[in-house]
């Protein structure tokens, strides 16, 4: 081989090897579950009324939360959570800038965002949980949590890329809390409480595929044109909400982010302004962590082989040196006796 060819080949190999290595260390991304259901949240339709928050508390039988520094006005039955918590599964937050003169505008504007579990297609919490307390339904894809199994390690809290699961640190018997898309209501033929009460259709429940099509319809419409927005559940016979089409960011958040999510977002301001991570891969992080683990522990062949080698070497080396080895040579007498003997010897 000529020197130049050799260099070329080496360079090609060097370029290809890491890519191949990376691929070998990745597990296949998970597909969308066959009967995936979820939610489309349209920030441009949200008016920040927080009816969804109060409905969520009622549907999930959660206590109101009050600001710790709240004054007299804050002593009633008002629910004033600042963030998601083990007893607040859903919260409306606002992006604000400057004079806040206009909705859905970055400069001197504001926008709403609804924060709760996104029910990832490839959820980190499910992959992280050591005891199967986090569970993704194989059909609907909803991610639920079973406190009776949970050991409270908080690895789900630590690993969630959206900061959703929360733990109660002020309770000796604290537990993890997060949105489970009202699976108890779905079981009775209902829909998630937040979508049920949303007056504008900003929170819309339904099959993920239909929601994606609905999102594309909105993205395709010219800003300002009048559009009919379904309310509650997509395809239901509820009266629609008629409004001017928002000035959308031309992207459906959750369509590809981190392997896709079953709760998806449309918004008028960039998604990172709403606290949604945008600089993320198109695969969930479990593809990397599980890929790594599955490669190292495939069929336990690696560890078994390693153990075999270690047993062989340990046995051989111990036999060679047994006489010298403190783990094997019994000094054969009580330490006190040994000390006495030494005294006598000296």
């Amino acid at each position, binding site marked *: 081989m000529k020197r130049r060819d050799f260099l070329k080949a080496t360079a090609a190999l060097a370029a290809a090897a*890491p890519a191949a290595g990376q691929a070998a260390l990745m597990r296949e991304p998970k597909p969308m579950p066959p009967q995936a259901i979820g939610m489309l949240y349209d920030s441009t339709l949200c008016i920040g009324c927080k009816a969804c928050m109060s409905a969520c508390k009622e549907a999930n039988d959660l206590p109101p939360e009050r600001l710790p520094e709240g004054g007299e006005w804050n002593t009633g039955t008002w629910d004033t959570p600042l*963030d998601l*918590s083990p007893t607040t599964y859903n919260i409306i937050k606002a992006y604000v800038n400057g004079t806040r003169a206009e909705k859905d505008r970055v400069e001197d504007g504001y926008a709403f965002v609804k924060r709760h579990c996104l029910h990832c297609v490839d959820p*980190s919490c499910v*992959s*992280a*949980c*050591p*005891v*199967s*307390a986090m569970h993704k339904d194989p059909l609907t894809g909803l991610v639920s949590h079973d*406190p009776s*199994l*949970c*050991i*409270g390690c*908080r*690895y789900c*809290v*630590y*690993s969630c*890329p959206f*900061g959703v699961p929360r*733990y*109660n*640190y*002020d309770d*000796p*018997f*604290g*537990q993890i809390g997060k949105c489970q898309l009202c699976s108890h209501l779905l079981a009775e033929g209902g829909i998630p409480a937040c979508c049920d009460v949303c007056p504008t259709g900003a929170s819309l429940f339904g099959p993920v595929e239909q929601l994606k099509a609905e999102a594309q319809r909105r993205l395709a419409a010219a800003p300002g044109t009048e559009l009919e927005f379904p309310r509650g559940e997509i395809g239901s016979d509820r009266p629609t909400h008629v409004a001017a089409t928002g000035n959308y960011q031309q992207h459906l958040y959750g369509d590809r982010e981190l392997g896709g999510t079953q709760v998806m977002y449309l918004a008028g301001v960039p998604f990172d302004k709403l606290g949604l991570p945008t600089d*993320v891969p198109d695969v969930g*992080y*479990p593809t*990397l*962590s*599980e890929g*790594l*683990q599955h490669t*190292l*522990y495939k069929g336990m062949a690696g560890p078994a082989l*390693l*153990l075999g080698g*270690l*047993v062989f070497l*340990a046995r051989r*080396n*111990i036999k060679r*040196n047994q*006489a*010298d*080895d*403190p*783990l*094997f040579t*019994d*000094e054969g007498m009580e*330490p006190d006796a*040994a*000390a006495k003997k030494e005294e006598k010897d000296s």
Partner: protein
Amino acid sequence: MSAHAHAPVGGRLVTVPFLVLAFLAAIALALLAGRFVYGLGAVTNLNDGYPWGIWVIIDIVIGTAFGCAGYAVSLIVYILNRGEYHPIVRSAVMASLFGYTLAGIAVMFDLGRYWNFYNLFLPWYAQPNSVMWEIALCVAGYITVLWIEFAPTFLERFGLHNAREKLSRVLFIIIALGVLLPTMHQSSLGSAIVILGHKVSPLWQTQFLPLLYLSSAILMGLALVPFESVLAALGLRRQLETGLMGRLNRVILVVGAIFLAVRFGDLLFRGALGHALAGDLRANMFLLESALFIGGLALLARQQAQRSARAQFIAAVTLLTAGILFRINSYLVGYEPVNGTWHYFPSVPEMLVTVGVFSIEILLYLVFVKKLPVLAKHA
């Protein structure tokens, strides 16, 4: 009598250091009572932005790395067949025994729903995709292995020669397991943060974390041997083992070189080294961590260190600090919670509990070396 007879150091058990350590341990236990009555928040500064604090990162991630002395020395003695290190096997295994057992206990008070902990060991709840599940099983297994590995010392002390003889015949399997299990879970402590993705700075987030955690754990386990040897020599008025430690340092150098090659090779390949010059806390902590790794190894590389106990000790402390920082940085400093302004700095009670855990380790060390044949006699 064997060439490296071991004997209890003897001496009074209740000394001033003993009482101070017992006092610190008592404070920790009192504070822990608060944790079990009022919840984790009453004692710690943990929050949903920082759900893992020093009870996980120092007591477990760093504590078990300190506990790698037995692993690293077993690896050298039994797998690489370097019999000359036999005199330090027992004390190294004992360091691991305490490091791991205490870490295992520390898990219990950090778990929010500790009464469910046994679900980790029920096959029908097992979640093999979880790195933590693998770590939990491996660590539990390794604690068992360590107690068996250390059992000869007990059996010898209490004159149970028959049992000891029987144990000797199967000990090679236990020793092999004692090398396999830490290889698995020390690397997994690195894999555990891969799933955090963009929440960990590119200075630490890489698919090479398992290899980096494994090599740095061996490095720390090895560095702990001269560290402990010098402290034992000073504290218990024993002879310095400078010659033996000098030879051990060469092994430390090789492991350290491997770690640095992977660490910087990976950073260069991913083009992440630029983050090191950002001038923020993360970048500076990275520079400090790297400086300590390189400085500690450079100190060892100097011929003088091979002979000077002082240089060996300083190099060991530098490398241990580097390993500690690498772990704190990758789990805590290099980690950024999603959304909102989260802060975490351990509370005083939280730190006192960690101090208490390490006090118990030193306390047990003193009791064990005084009462059991752990340290080699200098004939």
